[in-house]
């Protein structure tokens, strides 16, 4: 027998380098960007931008997409039942927005949901609802259902009241709610409008439960300071409560990222890791202003102390002064709107 130790030793000497090569061979990742284990599943890359279009379409998860443009973000959900749109951008932009939506689905727009009554969120209601089509009843598929009327528009009743006060006669919500939550079922998943005031008295979060995506409206705007519309029912207390409620609704997949995705009213697609940083900012500035208010400082004195200076470098000093003034007013003056009826869900 050939000396077995020498023979097998030689075989081992040959095999080891070949085994070492094997560990560097991998599989290229597809455009779904699924990363190795211990990393969350991230959204696919954005769609190519149409020539001349100001919009970028960011796939979020499944049939949900964020359309980001020069104004407020729009969340679109597409499926066999049709298209659901959360916020519609400013008036005059509906045609451009519709062109982007048609890249995602040719089906009718069945629902419009508004997170608040701001013009950059509801301006396109008229343009988009007029071409849409309601589902006849229940959860029937559209193939066997005769559509009728314009697309129903859902929002908190405060949105309708505010638009009426502003003299609007069209583009108004057709279905409103005044309790903690309004639920529908569309494209195979529960969709909830969750009352979350703070920016105004009529803000809603929109949660797509199976997609695990939330449209936050102007409760979360990572590219700017919050806007507290105090004359429209906004307040810092309600805003912080709603922001923390949003955090309670989000569940990250791994390492405080991924999992529930959030489409902000303005700014980048986000997850809980982003929202907690924004919540911290608002809380820090609130706490600093409140401490100064408790010491009896005037607004001018508070602004001179610049309690937002570590964030003004991100947004601007002017915006910081305005936000500080809104917090100060919210803390020191009686609410301009009747907040007694505003329920902040726990």
């Amino acid at each position, binding site marked *: 027998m050939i000396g077995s130790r020498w023979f097998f030793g030689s075989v081992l000497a*040959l095999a080891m380098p070949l085994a070492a090569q094997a560990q560097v061979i*991998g599989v290229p990742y597809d455009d779904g960007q699924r990363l190795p284990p*211990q990393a969350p599943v991230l959204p696919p890359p954005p769609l190519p931008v149409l020539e001349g279009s100001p919009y970028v379409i960011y796939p979020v998860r499944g049939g949900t997409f*964020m359309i980001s443009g020069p104004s407020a973000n729009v969340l679109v959900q597409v499926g066999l039942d049709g298209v659901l749109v959360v916020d519609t951008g400013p008036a005059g932009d509906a045609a451009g927005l519709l062109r982007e939506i048609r890249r995602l689905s040719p089906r009718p727009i069945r629902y419009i949901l508004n997170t608040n009554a701001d013009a950059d969120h509801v301006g396109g209601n008229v343009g988009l609802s007029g071409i849409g089509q309601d589902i006849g009843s229940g959860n029937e598929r559209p193939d066997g259902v005769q559509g009728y009327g314009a697309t129903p528009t859902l929002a908190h009743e405060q949105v309708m009241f505010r638009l009426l006060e502003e003299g609007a006669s069209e583009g108004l919500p057709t279905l409103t709610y005044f309790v903690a939550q309004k639920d529908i079922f569309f494209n195979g998943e529960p969709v909830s409008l969750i009352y979350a005031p703070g920016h105004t008295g009529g803000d809603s979060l929109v949660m797509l439960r199976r997609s695990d995506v939330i449209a936050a409206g102007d409760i979360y705007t990572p590219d700017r300071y919050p806007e507290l519309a105090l004359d429209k029912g906004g307040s810092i207390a309600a805003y912080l409560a709603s922001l923390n409620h949003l955090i309670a609704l989000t569940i990250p997949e791994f390492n405080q990222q991924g999992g529930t995705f959030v489409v902000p009213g303005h700014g980048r697609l986000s997850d809980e890791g982003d929202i907690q*940083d924004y919540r911290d900012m608002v*809380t820090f500035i609130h706490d600093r202003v409140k401490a100064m208010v408790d010491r009896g400082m005037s607004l001018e004195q508070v602004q001179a102390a610049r309690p937002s200076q570590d964030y003004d470098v991100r947004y601007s000093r002017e915006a910081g002064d305005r936000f500080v003034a809104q917090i100060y007013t919210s803390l020191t003056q009686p609410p301009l709107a009747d907040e007694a009826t505003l329920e902040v869900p726990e």
Partner: protein
Amino acid sequence: MRRLILLLCLPLAGLGANPAWAQSDIVGEWEHRQHEDRNERGAGPDIGEYEGLPINGAARYHAERWSPSLWTVPEHQCIPHPADYGPNFSSVRIWKDVNPLTQEVVAYHTNIAWNNPVRTIWMDGRPHPPANALHTWEGFSTGRWDGDRLVVTTTHMKPAYLRRNGLPRSETAVLTEYFIRTGDFLTWVSVIVDPVYLTEPIIRSRDFHLNPGYQVELYPCSIDVEVPRPAGEVPSYVDGNPDIRQYAEEYALPWEAVQGGAATMYPEFIATMGQVAPAQEGGE
């Protein structure tokens, strides 16, 4: 006869060996050598220790109000070190994906300890995403070879920190890294440019030694409420940390030096100590 067989086999073993160019490849398990900035990378910096960092007044203001108790907030507990801080802290495993049809490297990946983040460095020339794409802790990285150096550019990082004592780093920062392999040593140079909180780039170099078979420590993080707080409370020092001067006093360091700023990076600053006006607040 046995010796003859062995001698004949030895050249054949060389057929499976890595080619010579692999000396510039960075794949492997690399054990960190904390010879540089040891205290910061180990136990961590002191509160108020900012010397040698080109921070502005806004960063200083934020850090002086930062509370370490922030780490106990549930949303903060399992945050991994971001891409620009990770090399400071841990050994690393680096591996690559190779297209079996073209044998081109598609991506490198890194995995470090402390919540075990996995980072991807795309080598296939894909562009960075638009501004409103999702940001991650490790960001979006693309790499290219510059001779024997791997140059990596990272954007789209979530807001995080420059140091573990409250110095912030914004989401607009751009990280440029240079991976330089010399034999069994890897030098990892990081250049952080943050237009929000830095007046000049921060440049760090970290050294690693090849240690095949090294196991990155697992860190199974679970979120638990250990400090009961009212809902929404986020700890901070509203009026500034009252002990912010403790570091300077304990080590008898000039206050203007420990407050940081770009001037404190350069040896010429030593000549000016005692003559420098107190650092200005407000980012100016």
